[in-house]
């Protein structure tokens, strides 16, 4: 492996990290802080992807001159649509099932199947393609032998912005403070005057909104089909569990570790063997550290 390839491999790992992180941030919020196993998270990502597709279609038909900028409309739109869906799901389904993790798992699994079939009926079973605008297609060439795909650079930037946004929200605002308080001790925060119900709705809807943005990103590199969310949901849960369920920083580092090892292993092994190796690694780590790499220290 020469230096150019090594550089591109490292970038591949970084790019996979960015995509995975976008996917798991929302899941980490919902699963980590609220303890809800949301099996429909993948379908919410797919929803974001379909919103992106629809936006591009609308721009192509009515505003072809502004086509280059459609992605900047698609991202907030994907967030808003999935945020509202999350709100509805929380009010209509999840709130009846708090503190019943297994029931939530089954209910959201059912919801994911319903959503998949709905996409199949609305958009058809075939994959849809989001056209890549000119400035996002092609590659940036720092040297003649190194090509870094523009869309991946864009996703990297998007992830950075979203991450900074989430961290500011969580650690610099009153809302974040409330979320963290509710995570640590629901009963106590309720007694201290925090409206835990409101926090739950907002957190869940916000987590779903992040899934929408992730969908927006993965449709740029992957494929958008009714079942696309299923491909990512297992990886996403592995990352959250591996990183330590209640730690956002743990999630970030876990996504980084798994993405880099995945791409590195893929280079030296075959794709399937790399996947198996990653799963063995996760199993071994979880055996010795059952609550994940990073755990929130709490006095018992």
């Amino acid at each position: 492996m020469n230096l150019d390839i090594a550089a591109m491999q490292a970038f591949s790992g970084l790019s996979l990290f960015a995509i995975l992180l976008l996917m798991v941030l929302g899941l980490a919020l919902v699963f980590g802080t609220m303890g809800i196993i949301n099996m429909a998270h993948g379908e919410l990502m797919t929803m974001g992807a379909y919103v992106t597709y629809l936006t591009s279609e609308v721009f192509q038909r009515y505003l072809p001159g502004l086509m280059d900028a459609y992605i900047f409309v698609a991202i907030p739109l994907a967030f808003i649509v999935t945020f509202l869906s999350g709100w509805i799901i929380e009010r209509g389904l999840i709130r009846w099932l708090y503190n019943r993790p297994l029931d939530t798992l089954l209910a959201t699994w059912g919801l994911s199947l319903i959503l998949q079939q709905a996409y199949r009926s609305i958009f058809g079973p075939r994959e849809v393609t989001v056209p890549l605008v000119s400035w996002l297609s092609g590659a940036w060439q720092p040297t003649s032998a190194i090509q870094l795909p523009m869309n991946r650079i864009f996703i990297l930037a998007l992830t950075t912005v979203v991450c900074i946004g989430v961290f500011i929200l969580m650690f610099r605002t009153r809302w974040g403070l409330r979320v963290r308080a509710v995570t640590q001790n629901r009963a106590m925060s309720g007694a201290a005057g925090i409206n835990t119900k409101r926090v739950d709705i907002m957190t869940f809807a916000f987590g779903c909104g992040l899934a929408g943005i992730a969908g927006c990103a993965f449709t740029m590199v992957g494929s958008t089909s009714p079942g696309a969310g299923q491909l990512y949901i297992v990886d996403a849960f592995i990352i959250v569990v591996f990183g330590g369920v209640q730690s956002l920083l743990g999630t970030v580092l876990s996504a980084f570790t798994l993405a880099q090892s995945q791409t590195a292993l893929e280079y030296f092994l075959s794709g399937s063997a790399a996947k198996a190796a990653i799963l063995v690694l996760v199993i071994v780590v979880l055996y010795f550290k059952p609550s994940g790499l990073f755990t929130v220290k709490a006095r018992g």
Partner: protein
Amino acid sequence: MNQMDRRHFIKTGSSMFALAATAGTPLITKAASTEPVKLGLLHSLTGTIAIAEASLVDAEKLAIDEINASGGILGRKIQPIVADGASDNATFAQKAKMLLERDKVAAIVGCYTSSSRKAVLPTLNRNKGLLYYPTYFEGEEEDKQVIYTSQEATQSVVPSIEWMTKQKGKKVFLVGSDYIYPRVCNKIAKATVARVGGKVMGEEYIPLGNTEFSSIINKIKAAKPDYIYSTVVGGSNVAFYKQLKAAGLDGTSPALISTLVTEDEIDGIGRQNAQGFYSCMGYFQSIKSPENAKFLKAFKGRYGQNRVVGDPMECAYNSVYLWKLGVEKAKSFVPNDVIAASDNIQINAPEGIVRIHKKTHYVWKKVRIGLARPDGQFDIVWESPNLIEPNPYPKI
């Protein structure tokens, strides 16, 4: 049902049976000459495989209607019985059983994936039924109740490798999804590469459904092959083509050829992503022949001008005509008579002559190599000079 009822039921039932037995024979022959004959169409109309498979039914129905309009088969109209395999092998087996035992279909055109076909075989053999299987696949099967109407692996892989080696160079990189078709194709590809003096620079498999190709693309860049032979399927293909383009590999160097990307798949992959990559197929929509023009006019007239036709759809359409010819030659709808009469029969299909191979009941056919255009169609850059003999059990 109580005791009385059951006894009563059995009594009436058996007397009816006796009546049928005595008077049955002339009745049945009389009915047979006028009543429509049933043809089962067994495909996934729902579920994940419906993406590729549902459109086959459209092509089959078109063929049935054309035949009915011109008088049917042996004076009888064809009545299609559509069954949904629902992308589930157990459902395929159950639906095949219903078609054969309840509906008493004369033949079935059906299945897409090899696993669904394998699931149907036991019922098919027990009932001495007849299945026309219209999808390109890996071969390595010869069931006497099945007629395989598309190309098996050697028919497309061997010409692909030979042509690419001649046109692009000796060094090849093999990429495939991790299941039986790519594995068999690559086995054949490697033997062919060795025979023509080429060199395999790498062989990679990705799990089904995988959408991350950056590592494989880097491996391809490091290996510097002259061309890539791809057997990536489904949603993975979308990601693969997209990421190749984004990484600056646009099909000029290295070139890329696939033996499973049809016009239908390109609709999902995106035209701009697929442009510049090669495919090897028996049928392309862009074939210029009076038969194909007639077929396309009929198909688009019925289903809409925007519909595209891919290789499996044309093979599904051909299957109905091959069945008609077999029945007419046998002068019988009994499956085993049709099977026996099918040796060497041929039709002039949209893709040209298709002839059933006597020994294997696969088909002799031409294959073509096409280069994907910006409009999602293929420019045919090569066509096999003769019909290619099927070879489902290649010696390698």
